[in-house]
């Protein structure tokens, strides 16, 4: 395949070849003018923190940053809905000239008085970094005066890319919440699920498995989380890290300060879910727990076996393309497509790291194209050339895929189908089938053209 790419983008695309240890250039700033699918530091911070349901998320900046992120996260809540509101200081020209600190101070006071929230996250946007508002000082002052925890999030958009934002969010959680309350120290089997955002209710699908093993989920970072759960997250005995791209940094910090070990897991796919449960049981060295885990796995696998065979028959031999934000889901997807008898011909991520790509390259079969920080033009060329049978991505990729006549499954943070756990896998397989086997694709094929006479 000969691809037409910009010179500075060439190194970001590689082909998996047998016996060659190679991976794409990554962890770099997006190339100006390349139409990257990435967002900014603020967006990175927002995706990590937004699912915290009872907190106020105040965006300190002009209106756009708040408007575009109002309720776009598909994270579900079992209770509070505060996180689905969009709060902004809506900075105007005079605020830019004279500074926005005073407005922020008054805004915070208003919010605390009206909502009495357990915490307020204040997100710095580009402009705040430029006009020099002292976010920390204002937040500190309001915390002191009102007693409400005000958390500054240093997420100025231009500071780097989304990964920087994930770090800013982790720092905010680590510096201002974790360790500020005492949790249940008596129960020996408390874990935190990190990088699990309860999108479409994923968390609710997997929590029962852990409960069944006698394992209590202390805090989830951050799906369906309440501020108070996060405060005592340091009391957990183990951190399970799913979305490695967003929260590995936090898990490392917690290990360093509180001595909590962490394990990388996936709750997506048969293999991933099975491993996550066995890893947990092995960690606690509890044979009863291990038995319960094995029983759960046996039972659930039996339940999904029939449906998966059904979908495998309908999907076998098709090819798949994957373009995700982070690498953890991409990796789990390659494995899942294998399970469904499908081959992955293209895999890419917005912000995968070197280690991630090494793993992706290892998992990918020979000939698979691997791409970092792709843009629509590259995706278009590659999807067409590779004749991908389905693309898994987010909203921005959806309509590109449709316009190319390629079936599509949404696996982003605004999806509405839960994909975690054993049943989640069946949901996923059903959606792949739904899009691949729709009659619409036969209608758009050339032989169906409208002819004269």
């Amino acid at each position, binding site marked *: 395949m000969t691809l037409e790419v*910009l010179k500075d983008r060439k190194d970001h695309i590689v082909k998996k070849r047998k016996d060659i240890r190679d991976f794409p250039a990554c962890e770099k*700033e*997006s*190339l*100006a*003018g*390349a*139409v*990257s699918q*990435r*967002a*900014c*530091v*603020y*967006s990175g911070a927002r995706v990590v923190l937004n699912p915290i349901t009872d907190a106020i998320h105040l965006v300190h900046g*002009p*209106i*756009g*940053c*708040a*408007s*575009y*992120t*109002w309720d*776009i996260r598909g994270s579900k809540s079992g209770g509070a809905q505060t996180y*689905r*509101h*969009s*709060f*902004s*200081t*809506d*900075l*105007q*020209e005079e605020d*830019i000239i004279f500074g926005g600190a005073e407005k922020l101070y*008054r*805004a915070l006071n*208003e919010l605390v008085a*009206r909502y009495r929230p357990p915490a307020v996250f204040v997100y710095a946007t*580009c*402009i705040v*970094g*430029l006009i020099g508002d002292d976010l920390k000082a204002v937040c500190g002052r309001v915390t002191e005066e009102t007693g409400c925890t005000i958390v500054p999030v240093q997420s100025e*958009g*231009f*500071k*780097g890319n989304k990964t920087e934002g994930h770090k800013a969010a982790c720092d905010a959680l680590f510096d201002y919440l974790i360790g500020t309350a005492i949790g249940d120290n008596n129960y020996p089997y408390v874990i935190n699920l990190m990088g699990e955002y309860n999108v479409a209710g994923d968390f609710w699908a997997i929590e029962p498995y852990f409960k069944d093993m006698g394992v209590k989920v202390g805090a989830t970072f951050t799906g369906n989380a309440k501020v108070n759960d996060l405060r005592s997250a340091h009391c957990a005995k183990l951190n399970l890290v799913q979305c490695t791209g967003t929260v590995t940094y936090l898990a490392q910090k917690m290990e360093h300060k509180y001595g909590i070990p962490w394990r990388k897991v996936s709750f997506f796919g048969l293999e991933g879910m099975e491993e996550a449960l066995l890893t947990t049981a092995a960690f606690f060295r509890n044979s009863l727990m291990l038995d319960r885990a094995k029983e759960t796995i046996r039972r659930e696998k039996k339940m999904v076996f029939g449906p998966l065979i059904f979908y495998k028959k309908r999907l076998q031999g098709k090819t798949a393309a994957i373009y995700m934000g982070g690498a953890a889901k991409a990796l789990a997807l390659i494995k899942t497509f294998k399970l469904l008898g499908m081959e992955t011909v293209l895999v890419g991520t917005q912000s995968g790291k070197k280690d991630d790509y090494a793993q992706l390259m290892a998992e990918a079969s020979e000939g698979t194209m691997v791409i970092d920080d792709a843009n*629509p*033009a590259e995706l*278009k060329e590659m999807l067409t050339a590779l004749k991908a049978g389905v693309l898994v991505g987010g*909203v*921005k990729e*959806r*309509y590109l895929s449709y*316009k*190319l*006549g390629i079936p599509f499954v949404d696996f982003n943070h605004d999806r509405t189908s839960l994909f975690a756990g054993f049943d989640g896998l069946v949901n996923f397989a059903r959606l792949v089938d739904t899009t691949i086997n729709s009659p619409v694709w036969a209608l*758009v094929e*050339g032989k169906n053209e409208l002819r004269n006479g």
Partner: protein
Amino acid sequence: MNYVTVNPCKVCQPLGAILAFRGIEGAMTVVHGSQGCSTYMRLHLTHHFAEPIDVASSALNEKDTVYGGAANLKLALKNVIARYKPALVGVTTTCLTETIGDDVNRIVNEFKAEEQVNDVIIIPVSTPSYTGAMIDGFNLAVEATLNVLTEEGEKENCLAIIPAANITPAEIREVKRIMDNFAPFIFFPDYADTLDAPFFEELPLIFPGGTKIEEIKRVGRCKAGIILGVCAGKNLARLLTEKFGVAARQLPLPVGLKATDVFFQTLAEITGRTIPARYQWERRLLLDAMIDAHVITYGKRVAIFGDDADLVLALARLVVELGMVVAICAVGPPNKEFVRQGAAAETILNPVDFDELAQAVRKTRLDLLMGNSKGKFMAKEKNIPLLRFGFPIHDRLGAGRQQIFSYRGAIQMVDLIANTILENEDLFVSIS
């Protein structure tokens, strides 16, 4: 709340500029700012129109922000031109680049000289996000484009039609259908085919369609101009009239019977032609539909809201013609003309956010909500239907295919409103 906007009823200026540039044939847009701005706006637009929407970014980082974004903007222009081969590139600024004080005109001129770019038109427009809203960004981009491209010249028998409000691709097509019967015309910016695009045999990087650059040049030769919308676009009317000598007048959006009458009468007056019989016929079809519906709609109470004042006013006029009561009429960004014209409503809210609007909605009896999809929370709370109009519509298909203009559009609206009321009242009663 005084210092916090809760659930905003507006988006920022650069998004409007992106929309306007999308209405020029062969155009691409570079958002000069951090990578997130372009990505978020793409997401917002792509979700609304259900079309892929490519917008480039100069992707400024920390260093560029300290030392200026010139190098990044030049690189962005170079890469976009290499990859997309556009005829025109619109460059919008953001709060970031406005605040660091980048002189985009100078940067663009330097770029053209350094790279010897002669065959691509580059149009910078200043659209900081800390002032104005979407429609202002739209109008500023239209103004900037006219300023760069349009030439003065001897007047021809031609009409310029320029929207200064949030109108859909399908509404652009309707205006063009009507104009085809009247006089030669130039519609700018025409994003009908670029934002409601077909399934292509082979997907182009830049979608075909849009006002041709040659046409934009000829706007200055039009003998008259119509700006669709009265709450914004004064800059455009002034520019056409004063700079190019094109007698421009602003009209309300042709929504509902009377406003459509005004539109047709103005066309007849400007062109000196009689209104074609088919539109008299369509008008009578509308009257017939309104009579059929009048008992169903009479006295029904509606709240209308959005970020575009002209669209909100247009919807309000239409429902008033149906005997409905506009209980609340609300527009996000401040707009004096809207407040002046919105008098028929019981409550006028401007400026407003969805928090304040929701409080007003709680306080009054309502049968119907009309506005963008962000009204879904109010509809759910109040358990009344929401008819989705305006921008954004993120939870239904066909936002770009909605068409409420002219007698034809109104007929669809009358049925939709009446049927929604019926559906909500009783599913199984025959109309009597």
